């Protein structure tokens, strides 16, 4: 029903797509797989009318069509959940869900009551307990992702495109999202599902379509496919995922005693309660928890981002450290790779070079006056090469790179500070398998060289694959501290969901 | 130094501001007269900004004008500019406002704001027969005309203990501001007898506030300039009096002097004061806007 013939698209010199032929099977879940930068999102944006200018043709129910805008596509019956969140922070949940297609009364006024009602229904379905009048800014990344999903479903389209809908949400939500998708399929809707999480695809998809370097290089039925085969298709080589076997020397590097964090506003509840744990040299500590369990804020607090709200003690190499400011934390040898790479990690319209050097400009100064350009160039070249960042030159702007490479830049800028303790918040969110493994390997190397790493993740397989020890958080408390050998998905989940 | 090449010679009219009709009239009359005398004439608006004024002078000297009819923004600030012109051999004739330099300008045809407002002060005192509460509305606080007029006025009124200034506020020579300021003052002082305003625009604004408050006939309004609206209002017995300056006279005289200078005459009186005449409801018959009948 929806197909593309020989679609091509370039951005200011970058070829994103060349000659894509794609055929979506109606009433099925079509998975699209491919490395970062393969062109998945671009293709979807074309299908949903975001990019009206492209070469090639879209066939919709056999007819060639050309969408001049998202509204066209929606009217034709194609809805999309974008990879990046696209909500209006200060508008309420209901207002966001109906943005651009508000319901109006006979008088042409907004029918707020009806919109609220419908919103409640959606929140029900998505098992999200929030007030429709609540502004989305007050929701967490994951919850916002659910609102995006509601938006798309509410359009009641024939084809629903989901570009990495689960990148920000955790098990619980994923489960009921899958249920919803199952329902849609039963209604005969066509789903396009993009994700870097293979296990999801096998659980969900009927067909797979593999993209590489801007073109489709294969497709087929999911049940005849194996992960290895698909990975090989998309990366062009074999990758063997081995489970972590290292054991780390346990001389303590970072110790945390009774860390607590008050709410952001006077009247909001505390976010962290009496958290104590320690991290050894060369140890990789995985922290798991459901959305809103406080993992991000735990890392933010350690990194000194909430000086006025936090209490408790923090020792690094047995020296007390007051979590006063990021600058202090950095000096003490702590680095934080934040959750939201675009919003907190990168300066999108500056080049790779200055994004990497920003954390250590002081070291790059000549006579403490001006920056030694040569040194700076050298630095960025080193990291581009060491982390295998795909770019034509260090002068390329951060915003022109695909997710995976952007994440590597954020890593680079923090590794440049030569930290003893590396805090990673969702380090592989939205990153392709290939890049993921590169990052895992990197983490192992770093650990082997004696760095202590704390990794927050919402992906159990990932946690189990790389960590030496697993901490579990629920509602701002530590609920478990397991050596990885005794940790299983079920045991971890049990601690994550447990109430206390 | 004068450029005969283009045949027609050129006079520059540099005016302190065009944001106020009185100066527009001054500038346009000067330009008109110059043209009548067969010159190319050109108006420069200093926008009350002495720095911009000196930019104008520099540009004028480069552009090779033969004379400058000048209405300075500031008695002291403008001296430097005039000296520049003198150095370049371009004669400067000041109109209306003075510059504090004995010899920089070739001649200064000045409207004597101070003694003008002294005259108003006298008439004012007499009208209120030496006692009553009055209000003063100042022009732009940073402008030297504002103070020339205020000082002249007070030099008289302050000698009469019976005359009490209950409020002194600024309305930036702006009619609307004057209206609003007056409206507010009337709340605080409903029982005043007169208002003295730094120019006619403000006088009109003040009058309108009084009229709206139904106090038009109890409170006497005094202005300064002799602008059209006020002249008509004096005719209609709305405004008590104003100080008539003679922009026409000054502008035309300046242009004429410049012409004579270019024709070779050199000895001009350094200062020609053009008296500011008191226009009242009695002698209004002899006057029209900006001048005598």
């Amino acid at each position, binding site marked *: 029903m929806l197909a593309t013939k020989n679609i091509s698209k370039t951005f200011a010199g970058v070829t994103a797509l060349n000659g894509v032929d794609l055929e979506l099977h109606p009433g099925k879940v079509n998975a699209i797989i491919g490395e970062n930068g393969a062109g998945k999102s671009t293709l979807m944006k074309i299908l949903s009318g975001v990019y009206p200018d492209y070469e090639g043709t879209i066939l919709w129910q056999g007819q060639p069509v050309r969408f001049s*805008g998202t509204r066209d596509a929606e009217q034709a019956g194609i809805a999309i959940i974008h990879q990046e969140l696209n909500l209006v922070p200060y508008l309420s949940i209901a207002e966001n869900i109906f943005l651009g297609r508000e319901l109006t009364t006979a008088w042409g006024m907004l029918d707020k009551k009806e919109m609220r009602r419908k919103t409640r229904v959606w929140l029900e379905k998505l098992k999200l307990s929030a007030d429709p009048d609540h502004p989305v800014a007050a929701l967490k990344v994951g919850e916002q992702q659910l609102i995006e999903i509601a938006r798309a479903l509410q359009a009641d389209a024939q084809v629903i495109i989901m570009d990495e809908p689960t990148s920000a949400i955790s098990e619980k939500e994923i489960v009921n999202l899958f249920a919803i998708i199952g329902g849609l399929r039963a209604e005969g809707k066509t789903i396009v599902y993009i994700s870097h999480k293979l296990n999801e695809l096998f659980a969900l998809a009927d067909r797979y379509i593999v993209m590489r370097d801007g073109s489709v290089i294969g497709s087929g039925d999911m049940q005849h496919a194996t992960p290895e085969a698909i990975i090989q298709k998309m990366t062009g080589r074999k990758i063997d995922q081995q489970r972590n076997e290292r054991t780390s020397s346990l001389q303590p590097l970072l110790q945390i005693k009774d860390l607590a964090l008050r709410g952001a506003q006077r009247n909001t509840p505390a976010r962290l309660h009496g958290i104590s744990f320690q991290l050894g040299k060369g140890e990789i500590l995985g922290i798991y928890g459901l959305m809103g369990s406080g993992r991000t804020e735990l890392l933010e607090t350690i990194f000194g981002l909430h000086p006025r709200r936090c209490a408790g003690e923090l020792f690094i190499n047995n020296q007390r450290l007051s979590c006063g400011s990021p600058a202090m934390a950095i000096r003490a040898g702590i680095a934080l790779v934040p959750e939201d790479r675009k919003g907190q990690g990168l300066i999108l319209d500056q080049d790779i070079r200055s994004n990497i050097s920003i954390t250590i400009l002081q070291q790059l100064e000549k006579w403490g006056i001006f920056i030694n350009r040569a040194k700076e160039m050298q630095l960025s070249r080193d990291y581009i090469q060491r982390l295998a960042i795909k770019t034509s030159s260090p002068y390329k702007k951060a915003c022109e790179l695909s997710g995976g490479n952007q994440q590597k830049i954020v890593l680079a800028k923090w590794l440049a500070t030569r930290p003893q303790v590396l805090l990673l918040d969702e380090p592989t969110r939205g990153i392709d398998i290939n890049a993921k493994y590169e990052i895992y390997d990197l983490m192992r190397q770093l650990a082997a060289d004696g760095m202590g790493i704390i990794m927050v993740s919402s992906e159990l397989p990932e946690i189990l694959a790389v960590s030496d020890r697993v901490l579990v958080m629920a509602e701002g408390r530590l609920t478990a501290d397991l050596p990885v050998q005794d940790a299983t998905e079920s045991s971890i989940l049990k601690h994550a969901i447990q109430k206390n | 130094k004068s450029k005969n090449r283009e045949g027609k010679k050129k006079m520059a009219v540099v005016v302190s501001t065009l944001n106020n009709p009185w100066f527009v009239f001054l500038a346009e009359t000067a330009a008109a007269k110059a043209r009548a005398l067969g010159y190319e004439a050109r108006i420069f608006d200093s926008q009350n900004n002495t720095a911009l004024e000196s930019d104008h002078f520099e540009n004028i000297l480069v552009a090779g004008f033969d004379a400058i009819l000048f209405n300075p923004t500031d008695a002291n600030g403008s001296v430097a500019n005039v000296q520049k012109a003198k150095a370049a051999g371009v004669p400067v004739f000041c109109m209306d406002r003075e510059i504090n330099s004995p010899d920089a300008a070739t001649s200064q045809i000045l409207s004597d704001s101070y003694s003008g407002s002294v005259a108003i002060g006298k008439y004012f005192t007499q009208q209120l027969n030496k006692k009553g509460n009055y209000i003063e509305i100042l022009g732009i*606080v940073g402008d030297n005309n504002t103070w020339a007029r205020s000082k002249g006025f007070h030099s008289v009124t302050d000698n009469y203990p019976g005359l009490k200034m209950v409020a*002194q506020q600024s309305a930036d020579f702006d009619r609307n501001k004057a209206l609003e300021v007056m409206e507010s003052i009337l709340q*605080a002082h409903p029982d005043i007898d007169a208002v003295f305003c730094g120019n006619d625009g403000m006088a009109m604004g003040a009058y309108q506030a009084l009229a709206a408050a139904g106090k038009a006939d109890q409170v006497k309004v005094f202005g300064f300039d002799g602008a059209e609206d006020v002249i008509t209002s004096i005719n209609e017995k709305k405004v008590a009096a104003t100080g008539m300056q003679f922009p026409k006279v000054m502008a035309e005289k300046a242009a004429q002097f410049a012409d004579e200078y270019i024709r070779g005459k050199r000895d001009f009186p350094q200062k020609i004061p053009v008296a500011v005449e008191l226009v009242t409801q009695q002698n209004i018959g002899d006057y029209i806007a900006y001048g005598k009948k």
Partner: protein
Amino acid sequence: MSTIALSSKRAQYIGRFQSLIALVVLCIVIGVLSDKFFTAGNGWNVLRQVAVNVCIAVGMTLIVLTAGIDLSVGSVLALCGAITAELLKNGIELPSNNLFIGFTILGAVLAGLLTGTLLGLFNGFIITRFRVPPFVATLGMLTIARGLTMLWTKGHPVSNLGDGFLYIGTGWFLGVPVPVWIAAIVVLLALFITRQTRLGRYIYAIGGNEQAAVLSGIHIGKIKMTVYAIGGALAAAGGIIVTSRLDSAQPNAGTGYELDAIAAVVIGGTSLSGGRGSIWGTVLGAVIIGVLNNGLVLLNVSPFWQQVVKGAVILAAVIIDRSNKKD
């Protein structure tokens, strides 16, 4: 550090609440210092004086909500006032084919409003079509419109416009000054637009996250043009009121009004980066400024001190307002 804000409703609420406090405090202080302040007469007086700024500031609010700004309101006000006055007084003469068109009050007023709308549309066009930052586009218009006013009036005021016309600025209707009626109607319409209509919703959306708005199929261009057009029209309305109050169109009217309007908007708690704010806040902001001007005169504060005090109070008001929007 987390990018979470207060619920927009609450933020607005608090914003309003805060400026309300600021206003009350201000009134009490002035009231204590001058017994003339709390009198009906003075009350109407303040409201009448505030009316013009309210009209302009309401338009400005809509514009600022889309993360834009309009610096040209002051000169647009002057130009439209002048056009209305001139048409009313002398109509249009085409000596060529000796044609003369006279204007009724209504006709002249409509002509003025139309001019304002067109100038606003022009702003919007430059901004959307050429992606010129609003600040610059309207800065250009600020100069142009002022120049046009000078050309149109030849620098001389246009006065004596007839009693009928004066009613707009000086008349009373049901015991309330006409300008206050006008301002009130403008405010009510704006409240309706921002709260009850698609347009309003889209205005907030564009200011909150333009990209999201685009992806939701909203025609950014159209909305922005509309908003700037409204802004222009309201500036024109202000111009007509001023002209009528003075029975005269002053070529230099409205100089610096843009700053008063923006001050009102910001004191009212509307964010200059768009997406957050309320008409109510702006109205309060405008009243605060009006009360301040009135108070400074009632207390006969010396002109030298007035500006200092005014600036300080504005800062104070905004600081109070921000102080517990902490993150």
